[in-house]
């Protein structure tokens, strides 16, 4: 069984981004970049499926500028077998990414496509579901457990009120949530090995996909900062403030 894992390069989760002075975008110049944390969990799950003898090949794919190859190498150091880079310098909306991924899936015919549930930059939480729509495949979003039995996948998923378990035929699309697994660290020998794994580069035009412009970013602004409040010295003082000043209890 082949597993396809679409991944994204994002600003490292521990870095706080700032808005550019001209309010056109966030300033990502010279910031530390990383594999999106949810994508890392997706790669880990795919690699574990391979180690369990269920998956035979793990293919990672990313859409973006040349620099995304760094994250594709990271994914291969974690255990993916090969990578596909769809090169573009344009910032694409999730629907356009999903269309490009559909072209990849049409060729690769993976049985399972595992995504991170959202990227921590755009916070859109759309691409997996959109690919599921375009390929007309069943989907299980926000997975906390994935079990494969023959050509059926059973997924426990995090929903607002608790956990829901769904069963669906393969091929299927799964997007992963935090509790699914704890990704491993890449070992130095695996990082070296990843440099020699195959990485195919394609242009958007190679995939024959017609992309549209769907929206215009008018501005990107910093949120209104909360004013720092006051420190109280005791529980009594706190209760007094909450009752008499804030009047919330």
């Amino acid at each position, binding site marked *: 069984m082949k597993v396809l894992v679409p991944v994204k390069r994002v*600003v490292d989760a521990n870095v*706080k981004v700032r808005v550019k002075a001209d309010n056109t975008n*966030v300033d990502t110049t010279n910031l530390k970049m990383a594999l999106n944390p949810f994508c890392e969990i997706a790669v880990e799950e795919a690699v574990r499926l391979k180690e369990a003898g269920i998956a035979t090949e793990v293919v990672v794919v990313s859409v973006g500028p040349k620099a995304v190859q760094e994250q594709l190498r990271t994914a291969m150091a974690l255990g993916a077998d090969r990578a596909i880079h769809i090169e573009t310098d344009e910032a694409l*909306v*999730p*629907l356009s990414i999903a269309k490009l991924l559909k072209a990849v899936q049409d060729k690769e015919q993976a049985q399972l496509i595992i995504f991170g549930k959202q990227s*921590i*930059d755009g*916070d*859109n*939480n*759309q*691409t*997996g*579901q*959109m*690919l*599921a*729509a375009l390929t007309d495949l*069943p*989907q299980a*979003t*926000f997975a*906390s457990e994935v079990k494969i039995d023959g050509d059926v996948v*059973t997924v426990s*998923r*995090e*929903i*607002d*009120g*608790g*956990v*829901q*378990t*769904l*069963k*669906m*035929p393969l091929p299927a699309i799964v997007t992963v949530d*935090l*509790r699914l697994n704890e990704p491993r660290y890449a070992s130095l020998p695996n990082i070296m090995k990843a440099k020699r794994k195959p990485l195919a580069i394609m242009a958007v035009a190679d995939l024959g996909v017609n992309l549209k412009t769907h*929206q215009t*970013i*008018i501005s*990107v*602004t910093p949120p209104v900062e*909360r004013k*720092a*409040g*006051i*420190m*109280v*010295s*005791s*529980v009594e003082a*706190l*209760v007094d403030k*909450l009752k008499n000043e*804030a009047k*919330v*209890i």
Partner: protein
Amino acid sequence: MAILVLAEHDNVSLKNDTAKVVSAAAAIGGDIHVLVAGVDCSAAVSAAQSLAGVSKVLVANATQYGAQLAENVSKLIVELAGDYEYILAATSSVGKDTLPRVAALLDVAQMSEVIEVVSPDTFVRPIYAGSALETVQSLDDKKVITVRSSAFDAVASTGKAEVVNLSQVIDASTELVSESLTESVRPELGNAGIIISGGRGMGSGENFAILEQLADKLGAAVGASRAAVDAGFVSNDLQVGQTGKIVAPNLYIAVGISGAIQHLAGMKDSKVIVAINKDPDAPIFQVADYGLVADLFEAVPALNQLV
């Protein structure tokens, strides 16, 4: 302009999120219809009928819709979409699961987690865990939007919408195996006026009992930081933050929570924030209206005595 709002419900009752999404729809302006897709959900339907500003409630009642699966509910919405310029849902697990699928089938982009309607085609949404706000103009003929319900006030229950029963029944290849819902007598995080959240500083799941006692006294909900969920203290559905629930109660009490950006993203729009932490340098104090540097195991029981 007609707007279709996907109702947020559990087949038994309508969630308050729906009233807040209808409020966002009213801010856009137009004829508002609500779609209730589920099974035996008559109470949810009558609650939707009473939402102010809603003229029609479309009811898709079939066992196939019982689990509210994105696979077939999205196709149902697409069948109805010809009559609508806007399709809205809450940024809930159902809304996030379903609406991107609808948008892709309609070949339009989706806007996630909208917090403000600037004009009928321009919306504000947070990016980078709320570190920036993006104002986006949609160029698509149909606009598919998930709404952050905590950013909108619920509409009143003074309406009298007409019910329209739909006949479309669409199958899904996905099957519901089981659902294990957290049962709690406390209010839901999304609707609570007061929330008391615990972080890594709680030390264990058992220690959350002191927060629960205080919550019961205040009629509050209990939440948690990602650190507390990752440590296995409490279940994931209590998580407040970028990847959990986004809340904006009147009072948010953060106990033993350091205040990572990802947590602040979920609660910094609360009206009043209280932080109790033994580390005076914890970043949570920078957003708190009232900070108390104290051992939570002494402060919380003391608070419980005094309120």
